[in-house]
């Protein structure tokens, strides 16, 4: 694969053609916050948290879906980028009812951790407080749409890795909602194999193991790399 050279944060770095800016950054240990991205799943570019500045582009671009190019000049962090990222998090919180204090994923939540890391200490927007249901019809798992940020990791892992394609999205814009089996209760799903992958990759408390109490869900998305390495590289490890 041809190697190209670009500048990231005033450092000259090399990357492989076809890589995303995010991948190139990670190869060089440059940190970019992400939410919808998950190593092993297809890129989606939905959350916009990975926004970076690319010289010549009037808009900020998502690092996870923008491919590197020869001589590209990328800035991963500046005042404007940080402000935008915080704003995105605020909007995410305002859109649904997260109520961290009583969440199964409290203290083990990617959204919460990012908010703390990026210094989002309050929300300036009015909360929409939508009246969203909880679906606990599944034997083992539950979904709380109040805590879903529509990253669609669940949709992708179920389709791309498990091959069940139980999850989909209904509605548009802020009315979007993840659904199981064309909007039947999860418990009535015929496609779900109960593998639990979606629960493990969900960054918040939206998907959880039933019976979990406050702060009891500790998710581990690294299983994904193991499965994929086994499948693709025939490498099996624990």
């Amino acid at each position, binding site marked *: 694969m041809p190697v190209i050279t670009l500048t990231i944060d005033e450092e000259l770095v090399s990357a492989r053609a076809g890589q995303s800016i995010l991948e190139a950054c990670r190869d060089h240990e440059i940190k970019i916050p992400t939410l919808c991205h998950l190593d092993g799943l297809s890129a989606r570019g939905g959350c916009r948290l990975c926004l970076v500045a690319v010289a010549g582009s009037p808009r900020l671009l998502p690092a996870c879906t923008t491919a590197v190019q020869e001589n590209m000049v990328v800035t991963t962090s500046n005042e404007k980028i940080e402000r935008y990222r915080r704003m995105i998090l605020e909007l995410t919180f305002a859109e649904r009812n997260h109520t961290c204090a009583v969440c*199964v994923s409290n203290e083990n939540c990617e959204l919460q951790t990012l908010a703390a890391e990026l210094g989002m200490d309050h929300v300036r927007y009015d909360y929409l407080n939508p009246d969203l249901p909880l*679906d606990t019809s599944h034997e083992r798992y539950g979904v709380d749409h109040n805590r879903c940020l529509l990253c669609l990791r669940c949709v992708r892992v179920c389709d791309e890795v498990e091959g069940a394609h139980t999850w989909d999205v209904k509605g548009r814009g802020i009315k979007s909602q993840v659904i199981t089996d064309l909007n039947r209760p999860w418990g009535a799903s015929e496609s779900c194999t109960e593998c639990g992958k979606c629960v493990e990759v969900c960054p918040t408390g939206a998907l959880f193991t*039933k019976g979990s*109490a*406050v702060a*009891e869900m500790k998710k581990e998305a690294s299983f994904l790399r193991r499965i994929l390495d086994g499948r693709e590289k025939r490498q099996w490890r624990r």
Partner: protein
Amino acid sequence: MSKTITIEPVTRIEGHAKISIMLDDSGRVVDSRFHVTEFRGFEKFCVGRSFWEMPGITARICGICPVSHLMASSKAGDMILGVRTPAPAVALRRLMNYAQLVQSHALSFFLLSGPDLILGMDADPLQRNMAGLIAANPDLARAGIRMRAFGQQLIRMLGDRSVHPSWAVPGGVRKSLGSDQRDQVLKQLPEMHATINIALDLMKDIHDSFSTEIDAYGEFPSLFMGLVGEDGGLEHYDGKLRVIDAEGKILEDGAAPEDYQRLIAEGEQKWSYLKFPYYRPLGPEQGMYRVGPLARLNVCDFAGTPKADRELRQFRHYGGQGKPVSGSFYYHHARLIEILHALERIEEILGDDILIDHHIRSQAGVNQNIGIGISEAPRGTLFHHYRVDDNGILEDVNLIIATGQNNLAMNRTVRQLAERFIRGDKLDQGLLNRVEHGIRVYDPCLSCSTHEAGRMPLQVQLFSARGELLDEVKRC
């Protein structure tokens, strides 16, 4: 011309209150109202959530007694699961519940009521507070703070945090107690016993110095309700409901949690967010009952631990010949006896090998659609009643909270104090202080007993029969 006096806000109680006193044309008190202007919507916004979350959510109702909600909620959850909760889990829950009793009662006696009791009702309000108490009796204040810390620490050991732990869950508890933690608690017990002994001695002096006015702080006949153990002993975690009348006659015994609605009806008044529960068979007038430390000591046959039983026998003298103790001022003393009892029970549980057993959580799904959990919170009997669908989603939630049940009695107490201490159509500090204390004897935590949101502090207003505001005193 009749008048109304209103007192707002009551300091050193948890929540938000306003008091109105109505005078008639001859200047006599005709009515008084203890309004709670705070409103929290827990019962409404829990609908649609899952019962698994309820211990965590309802623990947030109150920062003073989160553990009580944890107990009642996880017990309601136990009932929904319909499986046996492992005995070690029950022992651990009891342990936390006693720790809660110690910390909450210590807060009430030493820190909230201490200034009134030690410095006197006519002390300068600038002195009659925590800082004044520390200046006047630093050893006592320190011992009280350490006792509260002892309870908080035990709660933290079990629940990883002292406020709002989400440790008890439907089916059991999440974590056991380590042996070094156990030893650490055991080591502190002698100091706690010493503190409670000092406080019990002090109580006798307090009764002497208040002797002329003790009977103005809610001395009236009423029913009493509380849980008692299978053997009739003092009980805080489980057991059956017992109701006695002012003569000590048992009206209701062995009532299971499922029966509570037959026993209790909840009245409402336009002027307060607090509900007005009463004993249903006797109606709202005759059915006024009190709950909490005084009620528990009145309804039980014995305490069941040696030191507390000795104190209880003496305590019964306040009531005389088989009668319950009817003065609410004795809530203070009852609290101290309960602390002593809790310390004895904590020692007992810590010495029990059952704590070593690792079975602390039963796993099950929804096996019943109704869950009712009753436990004794520091302030009185607490009811959590849930109806869930087959997936465990809440369709209906009813919470009856201790302070609410003492609502009628608190109103009665305010009126009694007003009758005794109002001079003319003016409000003076002496009255204000006493009315505040009259409420404080119940140690109300208003934030959790009102059913929707707002803020605390007390205002007293004096009204004429025509509704004219004659005088007003505010304290923030």
